[in-house]
């Protein structure tokens, strides 16, 4: 194992232990690791943006391919710096307005398409037909009932009383099962990350330390 790999494993171990030290209580090691993480993360993003954004989308097209029209968004982007002075602070609204306008207008149709029509289409399924097993038919019925009742629960234009109240109540049960499943998946995701870190500390790290001596 090379020097840099050994050093890397040791550095990773120190930072891993520093973060885990928070389980005891908040302490300077944890705070230091947390602040270093923020700095490194932003620095990582900055370099990524420079190499994968600034150079290929602005610098190279303008100065190597003479695509001078790209100076227009650059000039609009410069307006962000208006916020550095109180008198020009309002200029920051222009690039934000461009983002908001284009984003709002363009998101309407795809939202309808992907989140409403497609989902609705997937919900219009046969409740019973030849070839479906009882279990499959029951699942299909539960999907339709689940979607319908959960929507009713979020529909506040009618009071949740009588039939509507009953449907909304059924919707809550479906929602609770859904939230329970999401919670279970989240827990398992975090646990698998924890297992990864524990394996690193108790398997990978000892190998490196033994290798040094």
């Amino acid at each position, binding site marked *: 194992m090379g020097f*840099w790999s050994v050093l890397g*494993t040791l550095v*990773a171990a120190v*930072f891993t232990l520093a*973060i885990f030290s*928070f*389980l005891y209580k908040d302490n300077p090691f944890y705070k*230091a*690791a*947390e*602040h*270093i*993480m*923020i*700095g*490194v993360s*932003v*620095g*990582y993003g900055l*370099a*990524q943006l420079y*190499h994968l*954004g600034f150079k290929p*989308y*602005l610098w190279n097209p303008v100065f190597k391919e003479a695509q001078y029209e*790209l100076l227009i*968004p*650059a000039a609009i*982007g410069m307006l962000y710096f208006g916020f550095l002075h109180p008198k020009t602070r309002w200029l920051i*609204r*222009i*690039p934000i*307005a461009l983002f*908001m*306008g284009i984003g709002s*207008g363009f998101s309407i149709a795809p*939202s309808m398409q992907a*989140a*409403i029509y497609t*989902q609705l289409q997937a919900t219009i399924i046969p409740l019973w037909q030849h070839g479906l097993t009882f279990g499959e038919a029951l*699942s299909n019925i539960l*999907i339709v009932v*689940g*979607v319908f009742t959960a*929507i009713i629960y979020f529909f506040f234009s009618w009071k949740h009383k009588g039939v509507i109240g009953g449907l909304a109540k059924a919707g809550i*049960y*479906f*929602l609770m*099962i*859904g*939230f*329970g*499943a999401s*919670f*279970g998946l*989240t*827990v398992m995701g975090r646990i698998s990350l*924890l297992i990864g*870190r524990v394996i*690193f500390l108790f398997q990978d790290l000892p190998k490196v330390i033994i290798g040094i001596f």
Partner: protein
Amino acid sequence: MKRSLPLAIVFIGGIIYFFAYFTPHYFSEYILQQKILVDWLKILGLFAFVIGLYSLIHLHATKIKRKVDNWQYSVMTLTGLTIMFIFGILVPEKFGGGIDQGSIYDWIFMNVQVPLQATMFSLLAFYITSAAFRAFKARSVEATCLLIAATIVMLGRVPLGESIRSATKGFLDFPLWTQWILDVPNMATKRAITFGVALGMIATSLKIMFGIERSWLGGSE
């Protein structure tokens, strides 16, 4: 001017881009949806990042300058940022600079950022378990539904669930039940929530386009 110009841009931009989606024309598909939507907004995003970077540096530099409590941590943040900046951007590739695999930047990412982030998120396992212990009490039918669904999904995703299935000869089939919960009730609720989110997004987009929602302009004139 200070408010009406941004509102006009939002309205005009919104209307143009709403119809652009339905217009199969070169100008719409190449200029509006490729050039402006992808390339131009990416360039605008670069400048937005610089503003965020400025805010972070300004905040920590002020803390250091004024020697506020725990200012030493701000030095660490700025040091991490500076090191990544130097090796990621300033140092030439032949000296280990750049962002490619094998560079110093990549080494720091793999041995500092990845373990830090993974450990930070794994730390949540302890808190989420503690929260579950306090929250998972079958006080009502709703809470019981949540408890049962979460327990089945958790058992169905670990080797213990497989072992229970083998031991009971498939009678307690947690992996199968987990899949059913995810495919049926979970999907039904996610779908209902997706409808709500989409309708909310569309309504908010229309409110922004027509100037009803103006909070993004900020409070001042």
